[in-house]
Every structure is written in structure tokens, then in C-alpha cells.
């Protein structure tokens, strides 16, 4: 009899889980894992089910912070998709995020309108915990009001984090980026050289809001591939 009661209790619990809307996920925010950014964000992370705008001029560190955030989201068990609407990402910088099979997907649509369609499809599937849409440089294509509303609704239904890198007409949270001042290194007879790191300033909300610096290392010159091709064809 006790077994029957236990089974019934278990069935009720499972039914409750099944009938629970997706939006009632355990947490309404997902920490990015970047402490300095999490401290700045309301409730300590990126909100689920909202459009998060990630904006700033070219070379302001948006993609560096985005990549780090997505990497951490993935490591915490979220399925992550990045839609590169601009088609400008340099593949070697993304090798570490895709070590063979993985729960990190990069989608390269042919145009900005296709990029929005891709975001729509991925969010609609409900299978991704985070979707990022790059619609910025070199050709910036703002996310229209209609598209923003539709994607926000889909993100809400999927309880997913949705980040748009580039301007969105409607966004629940706007993160602004700007490059910090770079102090060149002077060396006798040579230089000025680039310093090993540069600050990137991040703010939540409009201009004038509190900004925090994120230090981004500047990688050295591109390292050459292992195979030498200077000797000519085999």
C-alpha cells in the first residue's frame, strides 16, 4: 500500500513538473560568471525571457565580453547558440568554444533578415538556454520593434537568455560598451607599443549610468599555423 501511495505521489510530482510553464525556471536570471559584470547587472545576471541589448561602437569590447559570457553559460549547462549576422567573426578565436561536439552552436546566415529568422526558429524550439544575435558591424541592422516584440515573447516562452549585439527597438536591459583609454608603452628608439591589456567600460542603462571596467588582454600578433608552406607545393 505504501508503494502505491509513493507512486501516486511521484506521479503527481511529475505532472506538476510537466504542467509548469517553462518561464518558471528555478532562476529568472543566469549569472554570466564574470563577477564584475554580474555585480553590475540587476539581480546578478542576465535575465531569462527578455531582450538584452549589447551596444557600443566597433572595437568597444562587446564581442569579447559576449564570448566570455557565452562560454560560461555553456559551462554551466546551458545550450548556447550564436547567430553571426555580420559574418565577420574570425574562426580561430572560436575554436575553444567548439571542441568537437558541444552544446555551443554558431549559425552564419546570409543576411540580416535571415539572422532574425534564425533567432526566431532557435528560440521557438525551446531547446536553447541562451541565444545571441550579432547584427552589428560591419553593416549594422537594428532589430525592428515588431521583431523585438516577437523575439521577446519567444524568449519568454522558452525561458531563454536572448542577447542582441546591436540596437534593438525594444529591450528590457541595455548594456552599453565603450573602449577605455589606451596608454601606449613608450620604448627608447621604438614604439609607441600597445599595452598588454586595455580597459573596456560597461554600463547598464543610459549614458551617464555607473560604468565598470573590464580588462581585456590584447593578444599578440596572430600566431602562424604549424604547417609551413613557404617551401612550395609537395
Amino acid at each position, binding site marked *: 500500500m505504501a508503494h502505491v501511495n509513493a507512486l501516486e505521489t511521484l506521479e503527481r510530482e*511529475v505532472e506538476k*513538473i510537466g504542467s509548469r510553464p517553462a518561464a518558471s*525556471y*528555478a532562476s529568472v536570471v543566469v549569472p554570466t560568471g564574470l563577477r564584475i559584470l554580474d555585480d553590475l547587472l540587476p539581480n546578478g545576471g542576465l535575465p531569462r525571457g527578455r531582450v538584452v541589448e549589447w551596444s557600443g561602437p566597433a*572595437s*568597444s*569590447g562587446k*564581442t*569579447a*565580453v559576449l*564570448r*566570455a559570457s557565452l562560454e560560461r553559460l555553456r559551462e554551466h549547462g546551458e*545550450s548556447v547558440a550564436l547567430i553571426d549576422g555580420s559574418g*565577420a*567573426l*574570425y*574562426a*580561430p578565436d*572560436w*575554436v*575553444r568554444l567548439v*571542441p*568537437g*561536439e558541444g552544446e*555551443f*552552436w*554558431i549559425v*552564419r*546566415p546570409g543576411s540580416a533578415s*535571415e539572422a532574425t529568422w*534564425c533567432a526566431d*526558429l*532557435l528560440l521557438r*524550439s*525551446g*531547446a*536553447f*538556454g541562451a541565444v545571441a544575435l550579432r547584427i552589428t558591424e*560591419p553593416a549594422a541592422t537594428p532589430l525592428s520593434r515588431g521583431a523585438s516584440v516577437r523575439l521577446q515573447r519567444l524568449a519568454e516562452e522558452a525561458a531563454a537568455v536572448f542577447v542582441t549585439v546591436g540596437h534593438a527597438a525594444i529591450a528590457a536591459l541595455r548594456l552599453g560598451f565603450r*573602449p*577605455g583609454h*589606451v596608454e*601606449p*608603452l613608450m620604448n627608447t628608439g621604438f614604439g*609607441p*607599443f*600597445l599595452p598588454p591589456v*586595455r580597459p573596456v567600460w560597461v554600463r547598464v542603462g543610459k549614458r551617464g549610468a555607473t560604468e565598470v571596467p*573590464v580588462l581585456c588582454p*590584447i593578444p599578440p*600578433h*596572430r*600566431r*602562424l*599555423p*604549424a*604547417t*609551413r*608552406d*613557404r617551401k612550395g607545393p609537395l
Partner: protein
Amino acid sequence: MTRLRPTRIASVRVNSEVADETYHLAVALLAGSPRVAVVDSTWCRVDARGWDRRGGEPALADTLRRAAEEAGYRGVRIGVADTAVVADVATRVVGESGTRIVEAGSGREFLSPLPLSMLMLPGELTETFHALGFRRVDDIAARDVSEFEARFGPDGVRAHRWAHGLDDQVFRAFDVVEMPEVALELDPPAETLEPLLFVLRHLLARACADLASSGLCAARLELDLQGRSGTETAVAVPARPTRQERLLYDLCRAALERAAGLKGRLTTPVAEVVLRISQTAPPDARQEDLFTRRWRDPMAAAAALSRLGVRLGPGGVVRPSIRPDHRPESHSVWEPAEIGYGSRVTNTDFESAPIPSVLHLLPEPVPLRVRMEEGRPSEIWSDAGQVGHHELVAAEGPERLSGDWWKDPYHREYFRVCTRDGSLLWLYREYRPSGEFRWWLHGWRD
């Protein structure tokens, strides 16, 4: 309540001279665990979990050894560890007929002092590492992954992960099955796609029923279109093994449409269609916690990614790949991604991890005007207005690149520069054979 450990794998190898049939050893090892994966006829991996109350892993190793010896094998070497890569190495360090159990969480410590050749990396990579002075596994593990990432691409990252005792291999139990195949003759022969699509549903329904009866999913489908002038084959690969009719229909339809071209007319009338499931796989499942609220349906992800692949073509869902070329635009490519389950990496030590800036390459380099000062760029602008006027506060370079003299010679000098407003740009000066040069903006760091 005893909880199962996340992963424990036993690797079992036997002397090759007694091996005859591929699955003979695997069948014998079923005495120790219901989950056995075949590597080859002398080498299997076994799920080593579940022996906590039966004497632990030493008892499992004894059982496996006894089972293999009773089946006629000698020289049984057994390694037990958290991941397949560590367990495999353990079988190589034990002597003839030995057992080595690597404690949970100590894979890296176990691997560190061993020579690099123990890792079973691809031969070319091992040679390169050797030439670079890496002798022990720790020589790789102690370095930052980004060094291997930039130079060797995914192979380098994998080698670094292996050196840490981490592994992405999915454990698949063995199974022997016949591949489902269904065929239908068309009378009269079909000249357009419409009749083919009509029969495709029927063929898929039969194939999926066959798959369901054998408990398998389709990993690759081939459609043979037999006409008078020969047979044309269209291939469809689902994102993950599946037997969902609708998803497979969408993929086959896209494959047929690609074969038929824009006009939807076949190159030759098709008299017979053969649908062959050329690769099958067990349902790709992952154990999740029933009460976790973060669970997401992997098949829904597979369906969405498949649809993206169909709509955007092979370059739609991609993964980065490094190529042996010095020119940045051809140094790497985005390859079609193979979609499967990834490993859940538990390394969450991110607080100290840096956030390096990310390089973007312009689809086409933008011509620039550059003012030089003491051999370095000091101001840049473009005549066409794509790039505004920028004063440069720092410039590093040149990094000289040249090569391909036998086909398409190039000679470039790259500079990394920083503008007064903090933007990091990547420019180069390209020399022509006549000695003239032009400046180009190739990308920027964001």
C-alpha cells in the same frame, strides 16, 4: 542512497594473436557490465559504474579478467578511470595481465609524468609536439589552452584536454543490425519532384517503422534515384540520430531539391526510388535529473538546427577549423558542424580567466590612406568614407607575411594600431611585384 558516479570507464585490452571475431570479446565482457563498447576486436570499453556494493572496481576488474580468460584470451590488461582516455592509457602502463585503477578525479596527476607517446595523439601532432620539445604529458597540461588553440586548432585543444584527463567521447554500447532499405518503382517514370515527394512519405513511414522495431534511429539516409542513364544519389544527414518522420522528410526533401535545382525538374526521368538508411545509431539520449528545471529537449534542438541547415545550406551551422595557410582570410574556415551531444565540462574556475578581445575580419579589406611617421602609421582615413579620419596613438609592427610564390604570391606587412578613441584596428600594406604598395584595413578587435 548510493549515487552513481558521473562516469567510470574500464578499458580492457587483450593480446591480439588470440582475437578472431570482432564482438567475441565484447560478448564475454557483458559478464561484468551491461554496457560494453567495442573499439576493435582486441579492445573494449566497459561502463564501470554500479559495483560499489559488489566489491568495487577491483571486483569488477577481476570479473572482467576472468570472463575474458574463460573466453580464451590471454594477456588481459585493464585500466579503470573517469574518462576513456585515462583508462586507455592505464592499460598501456600496466604490464602483461595487469590492472590499474586510477582514482576518481586524479586523471591528470596520473597522466602528468608519463611520456607524451602514451596519449595516442595523431602521429603528425605527436611529431610536431616532439619537435617543439614536449616530452611528457605535463609539458602540454601545464601550458595555457589558448597556445594550442591558436596553433593547432581543434586537434590542439583536444590534445590539451586529453593531457588534463578530460575526454569528449560518447559511450556507445555495441549492436549489430541490418540497415533498413525500402524501394518503390514509378510507372511512368517521374520527371519532376512532385511524384517523388509523394512516394517519399510512404518510403519514410516504412523505414521509420523498421527502425522503431529495432530500437534504432537514422544517422544518415541515401536516396538512390534510378533512371535510364544511371543512378543519382541524394544524401541527407539529420543533426542527431532520429526516426521522426517529419524531420527526415524535410531533410530528404531538401536533398532532392538541391539535386533537382531551382526549376524542380530532374535531370533524367526516375523509374525507381530506393531509400536506404546507410547509418544507424541508438537513440541518442542523455540521463538528466527528473526534477531539474533546466532540462531542454535535445531533439527539439536537433530539429531546429536541421531546419537551419536546410534553409541556409552547408555553411549555415558551422564550426571553426584551422588550415595551414598564412593569409588570415584563408588561415581558417567555417566548416559544417557535426551535431551531437557535447560533454558537460565541470571546470568552472573562471574568475581568473582572461577575456581576450575577439578579432573580426572584414568580408573584403577596405582600401586606406595612411600617413606614416618614423616608419609607423600615425593617421588613417579612407577616400570613399568607409573609415573616418583617425589619429593613431600606438602602432605595432610590421609582421611580415609572404609566400605562395608558386601560385598567387603575396607580400604583406601587418600593423596592429590603436586609435585615439581606443579602437584596435588591423591594417596591412600589400606590396606588388613592381614594388608599389597599398594600404588596407583588414579587421578590428572587439
